[in-house]
């Protein structure tokens, strides 16, 4: 029998109240298909989705970039829940198939045993709504968490009205709560054209589609439908700035660019609009996959870091599967929702079979990666946008809004402005000098500059920080190691995350640091131990 240290965590991480054979995270096309498939195979399934997201979360651009352009109806939770259900008919089908559907529920963490954690009674997810949090144990996990927005900064992008294609689509089609009347769309690929069409359908004026490239990147016929409806397309253009009083975007200034992205003087034009929507790509949501230890690889044409999956959507962690846009997003996917559904069904079936269900139908063939023109296609395109924005807007533009870190401060590895620190030594340091010590690491530069350390949890700046570092290091983004994700992957209040009750041992044996009596003893009075109080330390709050 092993002795136990009462102050250690051994035995204090109690099993969750509920443990289910299968949890599916994300109720998009892939997640719902996975849940239904597994349920039909006789597996008990919980399907979790965070929509409708509450207003405070949306205001932080979490989980998508809503750009403060939500109208007041998003505060009406019942109405939003109704709309989420109404706009996703698959949810009803899942419910009918016996899936336990939990909406308005955040997944903020995934906890598994591994090299440095051995005391968890089972693998579990941290869940929360806007009032409380809880844990849910699982035997199998299917992550179908979708993709998130990519934003690049420009002068004035802190103003209300800077959205991402995902945020705009959610506000337009799901919540029907977009508080904007005239939008400029950045990007002319399938995502940009789709976003513009969606806006027009919903009665929003599209003041223009801006493309840094010299050609429309998406389908020509689709683009013509838009121009026929009076939507101007500005090719070889970039955004110079957004303007407006009182913190709102009221217009944008576009400027024509040369082939190398440099602005052409005198070509500026101001366009009235109350929203700018980035629609140049999406990034797979791999936070949970990272937390469970699934192996990720960088595939530019799929939007960056994606999980390695087998043909049956199993990740490198045998109990975890992934399906849908979180396994990789490219613009062709917008026209092929059946691929996500097929992936979901594969994952659902494989998960069910791994739990002992009978072997199902043969797997469908599906193809997420179409043959790419070049390996770094997506990021070269993003980089072209970034270069043009730098050429037009300069280096004094915030790359991180939460922490107010400019592009210049990032590449010069400046300490944050509020420290007011200046020294010749500090002035001599930069990303360039750091490169002499080894490859750049985004987490290291985050610690120094604070870029990416704010409440949006780097959703607005992760890609552009990476691209700027790659630019400074004269390399490509795939050479910059994946910056880590940490729980909680949704910014939740202390009084939501806290547990309502705790095991007695957790409370009674709690010490700030190990509880080794000699550790903090004055060295001049040998043997005089300072024992941190434990069982006697009854807390006022709990009385």
């Amino acid at each position, binding site marked *: 029998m092993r*002795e136990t*240290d009462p*102050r*250690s*965590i*051994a035995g204090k*991480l109690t099993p969750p109240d509920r443990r289910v054979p299968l949890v599916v995270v994300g109720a998009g096309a892939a997640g719902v298909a996975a849940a239904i498939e597994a349920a039909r195979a006789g597996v008990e399934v919980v399907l979790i989705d965070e929509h409708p997201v509450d207003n405070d979360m949306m205001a932080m651009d979490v989980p998508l970039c809503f750009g403060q352009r939500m109208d007041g109806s998003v505060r009406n939770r019942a109405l939003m829940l109704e709309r989420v259900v109404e706009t996703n008919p698959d949810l009803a089908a899942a419910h009918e198939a016996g899936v336990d559907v939990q909406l308005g529920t955040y997944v903020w*963490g995934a*906890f*598994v*045993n591994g*090299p*440095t*954690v051995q*005391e968890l009674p089972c*693998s579990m997810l*941290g869940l929360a709504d806007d009032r409380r*949090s809880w*844990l849910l144990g699982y035997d199998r996990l299917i992550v179908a968490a979708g993709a998130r927005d990519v934003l690049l900064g420009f002068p004035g992008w802190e103003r209300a009205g800077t959205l991402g294609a995902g945020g705009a689509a959610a506000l337009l089609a799901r919540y029907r709560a977009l508080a904007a009347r005239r939008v400029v769309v950045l990007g002319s690929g399938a995502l940009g054209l789709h976003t513009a069409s969606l806006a027009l359908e919903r009665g929003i004026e599209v003041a223009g589609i801006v493309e840094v490239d010299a050609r429309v990147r998406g389908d020509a016929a689709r683009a013509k439908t838009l121009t026929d409806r009076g939507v101007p397309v500005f090719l070889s253009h970039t955004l110079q700035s957004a303007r407006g009083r009182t913190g709102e975007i009221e217009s944008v200034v576009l400027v024509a660019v040369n082939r190398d992205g440099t602005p052409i003087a005198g070509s500026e034009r101001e366009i009235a609009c109350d929203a700018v929507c980035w629609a140049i790509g999406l990034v797979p949501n791999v936070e949970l996959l990272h937390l469970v230890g699934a192996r990720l690889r960088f595939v530019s044409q799929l939007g960056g870091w994606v999980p390695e999956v*087998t043909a049956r959507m199993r990740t490198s962690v*045998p109990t975890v599967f992934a399906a849908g846009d979180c396994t990789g997003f490219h613009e062709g996917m917008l026209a092929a929702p059946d691929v996500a559904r097929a992936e979901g069904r594969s994952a659902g079936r*494989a998960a069910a*079979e*791994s739990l*002992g269900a009978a072997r199902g139908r043969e797997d469908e063939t599906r193809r997420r990666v179409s043959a790419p023109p070049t390996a770094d296609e997506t990021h070269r395109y993003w980089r072209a946008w970034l270069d043009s924005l730098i050429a037009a807007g300069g280096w004094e533009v915030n790359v991180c809004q939460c*922490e107010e870190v400019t592009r210049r401060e990032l590449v010069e590895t400046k300490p*944050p402005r*509020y420290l007011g*620190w200046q020294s010749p*030594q*500090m002035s001599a340091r930069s990303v360039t000098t750091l490169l002499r*010590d*080894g490859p750049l690491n985004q987490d*290291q530069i985050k*610690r120094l500059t604070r870029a990416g350390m704010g409440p949006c949890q780097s959703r607005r700046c992760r890609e552009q920080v990476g691209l700027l570092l790659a630019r400074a290091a004269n390399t490509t983004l795939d050479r910059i190691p994946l910056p880590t994700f*940490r*729980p*909680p992957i949704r*910014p939740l*209040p*202390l*009084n939501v*995350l*806290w*547990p309502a009750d705790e095991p007695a041992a*957790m409370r009674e044996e*709690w*010490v700030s*640091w190990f509880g*080794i009596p*000699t*550790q*903090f003893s004055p*060295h001049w009075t040998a043997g005089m131990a*300072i024992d941190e*109080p434990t069982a006697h*330390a*009854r*807390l*006022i709050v709990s009385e």
Partner: protein
Amino acid sequence: MMADMARASGASVVIVGGGVTGLSTGWWLARAGVDVLVLEKGIVGWEASGRNGGGATHVYSPFGLEEQRLWPQMDELLGYPTEYQPHRIGIALSETQLALARRWAEIGGTRGFRWELLDRRQLKELVPIVGDNAIGGTYLHFGGHANPQRTVQAYAWGLQDNGGRIQQHATVTGLTQRGGRVTAVQTTRGTFGADTVVIAAGPQTGAFADMLGICLPLAPARVEMIATEPIPLMRVGGVAGNGLYGRQTLRGNLVYGGGPHEWINVPDMATPEHANTPLVRNLARRLAELLPGAAHVRLIRAWSGLVENTPDGLPVVERLARPDNVVIATMSSVGFGLSPAVGRAVSELVRFGRCQFADLGALALGRFADTPRDWREHAGWAAAPSAVEAAAGGDD
């Protein structure tokens, strides 16, 4: 010939471990004009050195007075910001917690530092977000806190500014011994000759001691911390209590840790994961109890770190008798705050063979001469048996 080549890429002093102890030591040596090279398996300060609570209040330690003397000067000495802030406030939610806070303060008092007891009203004036559950506290006119991430980088940069070198991404794989001395350090990036070797490798320090045939009892453990979004700055950021250590940063985030640790094994030299457990929820609860006015504040990050402890929780800082050109330094999980002083001490052990400002006799390895090899099991400090998850079925 081989030895000559190694010498060419070596240094007078080679330091194994780019954590806060190794970096501070290297900085002190470089300032003194010594040719120094720090070998780090990953990035400087990446482990517990750069992810701790930032406390700088350890007056109980033999290094304590030097710690207190040095911290207010560190920004200027290094040339880079550490975010050092003086003073500490201890908050007590119970008589027992108050007794502990007083005990800490009194230790400072016996060393000549000033402190005072605070009633709830005084506490609320200083820390408006404390609640009616607080019964009082202490104000220490000594101690303080700094930003670990900024400080480790400051040591590294300061070391380089003084002519020292750092080799990152170099994992040490062996120590070459000849004639009763360690003559070179073998790494994944080549072999580096050395006149003197400092081993300050955190949880891995024990493995290097093993290579020298020396038994250094160390138990690694994982501990966790949380950070909130920024809130308005309090007058004193060094506020802690209720079984939590930590601080309000100069940005305004509340950054705290505490509670149960997990004893683990560090199987190899690889950079470990920094995984969290649901303990982050308990930490959130403790913090909301400590500062009820911040209960609505959002938690935006959590992380863990690996630290090592000796059986008595006290450091081992010693220049070995044999091999006689090796200094071992493990701070037994309490290294960050003491680092300005410990770096100086180790640099003196290297240069002069003894620490000139403190008696380190109590920190000698000899005190563990009778420690049995299975001491971790006896103490209950052994890692849990590896929980092998039932292999999932499947056929692909």
